[in-house]
């Protein structure tokens, strides 16, 4: 069986300070192995394979490359070295509310976002009611998106993206928002998706969530993959490192 995600020798480099001088020569120098002054490797030499149906949690402190890795898998960022190969579509629960337009209504926004993620018009129409019901926004379908509360916005976004029929689900910290009742609903939805055999790639700081959803863990530190194993062992190692400092 073909693997779901194949990451090999992955590396990506960022500039240390936004104001740093950028010369025209820099831009066209291409992706060389050498790190230039004022740049650092956010990820380097990361290699792993994810089988279909696996649920993977990414562990690490802030700024160690977790979200960067997720963005590379979602291919909204391109690597400077190495490759990311993803088999099948991806439902990205990252920057959830990013695709929504304030001036358009909830209804129009659902059509737009679902469409951008590849849903056909008929499919959106068929699932529309379910999405609205999940987000509990039945009375706000013709309200401009900008007039929704922050909680409602996240609910809507989660409900649209989690309805996508993609085999791989990427989740980045989105469950931290929303009230408890909705969070429980989201958990249930993710459980459902996992039972259906989706592949989950999960970034979180919540040890409880990680243990709940994931079997396997990736531990990132200073942009390197320092451990790849069962989630319990990875978390124990992370806690040991973390408390030692």
């Amino acid at each position: 069986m073909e693997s779901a995600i194949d990451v090999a020798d992955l590396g990506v480099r960022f500039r240390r300070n936004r104001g740093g001088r950028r010369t025209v020569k820099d831009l066209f120098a291409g992706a060389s192995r050498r790190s230039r002054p004022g740049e650092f490797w956010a990820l380097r030499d990361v290699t792993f394979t994810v089988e279909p149906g696996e649920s993977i949690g990414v562990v690490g402190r802030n700024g160690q490359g977790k979200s960067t890795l997720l963005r590379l898998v979602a291919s909204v960022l391109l690597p400077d070295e190495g490759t990311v190969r993803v088999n099948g579509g991806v439902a990205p629960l990252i920057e959830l509310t990013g695709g929504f337009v304030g001036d358009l209504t909830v209804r129009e926004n659902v059509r737009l976002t679902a469409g951008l993620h590849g849903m056909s018009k008929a499919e959106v129409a068929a699932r529309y009611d379910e999405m609205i019901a999940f987000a509990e926004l039945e009375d706000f379908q013709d309200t401009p998106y900008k007039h929704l509360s922050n909680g409602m916005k996240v609910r809507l976004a989660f409900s649209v993206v989690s309805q996508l029929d993609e085999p791989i689900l990427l989740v980045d910290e989105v469950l931290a928002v929303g009230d408890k009742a909705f969070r429980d609903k989201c958990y249930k939805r993710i459980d459902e998706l996992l039972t259906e055999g989706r592949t989950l790639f999960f970034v979180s700081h919540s040890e409880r969530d990680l243990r709940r959803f994931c079997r396997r863990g990736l531990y990132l530190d200073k942009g390197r993959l320092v451990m790849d194993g069962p989630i319990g062992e990875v978390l124990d190692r992370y806690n040991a490192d973390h408390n030692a400092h």
Partner: protein
Amino acid sequence: MATTVGAPGTPRRYFHSLWLLSARDLKVRYSTSALGYLWSVLDPLVMSAIYWFVFTQVFSRSVGEQPYIIFLITALLPWVWFNASVGDFTRAFKKDARLVRSTAIPRSIWVNRIVLSKGVEFLYSLPVLAIFVVANILIESDPAKTAHVGWGILLFPLAVLLQTVLLVGLGLLIAPLCALYTDLERTTALILRALFYATPIIYSVNDLPGVFQTLGMLNPLAGIFSLYRMAFFPDQWHPELVAVSSVMTVAILALGTWMFRTLERPVLKEL
């Protein structure tokens, strides 16, 4: 997968996303203001009125052709398409940075959707030209000042096609550069202003003296606008000019494609 519109990376999926985003732009444009449609035609109308007043009422006009107002509008409407698109290219990635950061669609869509939505607005504004032509034919009694629709109108689609290719090329060139170098936003605005006068809009290429005519031919808009004008002004026919413009357009598209490929990676990091 049965539920998605083509697999990611297929042309079908590309046009599906492109159309969704362009339709969104248009919907936002027309749903947020009461005057909606009027805004896309008001700009060229006011500009036409100003130049018509200045050049036919204040100065005695020595450039362009009769009827001058139609001569103006045939180039001003596509100019507004060009101007608005290039203006939006400078913010193509920043305006939707969050969407670019979270949705994996081919990045050239962020440029092409501007060309498409502004192009649709341009097509919507064409009835204005038709109204002026009909009014001119009905009202004007002097045959020398009456508009005549000729075979040149068949060149109109070619002009639209060339302008689309030119805009896509410029967009692929300008959008990533502006995302990386903020100064270029201002620079582009200045260049656009200069280009308005450097392009045969209020005059025609035939009016340029000596060496300027040769230089002016290098401007790809010169040939494109002469094609738009062919519908009413057969004297604008200038095959060499159209040939030069086509070559320039394709060259800009090639340069833009290369630039976009080179800069895509740093742009995504910058957002």
